[in-house]
């Protein structure tokens, strides 16, 4: 049994089982997200999709819609909190956009534009995260990992290889490769894997195609992520 809830004051219909994010998107309303992907079950870790329901913060990707809910999403308060989450992601890794192949196609960068993030505000960590260039077709640059686990989920649930995992806790959490040597070359990872094309940022990069698309023609150069994501259904 479905119903209707109010999304930023506008009525949005939903079907039984749909989450707030799914129903909002079906009605044409974009909610920022990083770890959510239409092809995967909700993960609820990035918290970019937080909305306020009845005065409480909830992850809209994970909470089923209920009849009569009043959902606040595109408000200065919620967008300010989303911006703070982005700023923490930016200082936690090494996100040096001018040298990144993913620049212009990166969801983290595009969301920072969308949410008016002009600086990272906090003190940068500048962690030491060596890259893994061992694989013949794919480069891993761990500096940019935001721990969304999309590669972990894609490799485990779609490719059935389990190439990636997160290890460590809290500030020591990091992405690892499931091989004795820790090197991607020593796994059965292939460039045709789903996990090779799932990274929302610039960690998993195909070799020999970097910077092929000129500035001005990249994914988020023309239109912002709130428009691109809805048009492409991602």
């Amino acid at each position, binding site marked *: 049994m479905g119903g209707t809830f109010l999304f930023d004051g506008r009525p949005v219909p939903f079907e039984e089982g749909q989450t707030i994010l799914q129903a909002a998107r079906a009605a044409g309303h974009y909610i920022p997200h990083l770890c959510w992907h239409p092809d995967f079950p909700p993960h609820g870790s990035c918290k970019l999709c937080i909305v306020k329901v009845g005065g409480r913060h909830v992850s809209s990707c994970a909470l089923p819609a209920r009849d009569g809910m009043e959902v606040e999403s595109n408000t200065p308060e919620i967008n300010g909190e989303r911006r703070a989450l982005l700023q923490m992601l*930016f200082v936690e890794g*090494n*996100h*040096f*956009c*001018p*040298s*990144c192949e993913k*620049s*212009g196609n990166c969801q983290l*960068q595009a969301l*920072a*534009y*969308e949410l*008016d993030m*002009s*600086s*990272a*505000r906090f*003190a*940068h960590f*500048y*962690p*030491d*995260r060596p890259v893994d260039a061992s694989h013949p077709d794919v480069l891993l640059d761990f500096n940019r990992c935001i721990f969304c686990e999309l590669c972990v989920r894609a490799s485990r649930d779609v490719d059935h290889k389990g190439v990636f995992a997160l290890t460590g806790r809290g500030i020591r959490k990091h992405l690892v490769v499931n091989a004795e040597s820790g090197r991607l070359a020593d796994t059965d990872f292939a460039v045709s894997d789903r996990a090779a094309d799932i990274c929302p940022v610039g960690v998993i990069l195909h070799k020999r195609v970097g910077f092929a698309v000129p*500035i001005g023609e990249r994914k988020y*150069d*023309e239109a*912002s992520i709130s428009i691109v994501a809805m048009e492409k259904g991602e």
Partner: protein
Amino acid sequence: MSDSIGMPRVRVATTSLAGCFGCHMSLLDMDERLLELAKVVEFDRSPLTDIKHCGPCDIGLIEGGVCNAENVHVLREFRRNCKTLVAVGACAINGGLPAQRNHLDLGDCLQQVYVKRDGIEEGGVPDDPELPLLLDRVHPIHEVVRVDYFIPGCPPSGEAIWKFLTDLIGGRTPRLAHPLLRFD
């Protein structure tokens, strides 16, 4: 922008710390709008005027991060003198390219460049007392002084700098939105 003959002009200072002058090139990339800007702006300390020290100013534009002791002194001089201080470009905002050394040991870096590099015969780390002391890490300028506004980009386009300055001088809250807001 309205003509402002008879009005006191807005005083602007600019400098490049650990930067490449690319942001200053972008400032010049406003082309003929520079003439319009010159009607309402006069420059204090800047590579464009060669004035060596900053006097009281309305706006200070800082390019580059903080990589040595001299950068710290210059940045503090700007903060003392400028009513509004603006971080211009990736390096001022997050350290940028120079900050790519931050996860390395500074001593190792200097040894590698000045002593161990291929082709160097009688190498040695420069130690002239005139040279400013390097900091162990490159810092974004907001880690050293309070910063009022940020203009991201590597470099920000002339268009973005123009939009920002005309907003600020015109008394509007400066805001760069897509597609002027960009990090590369």
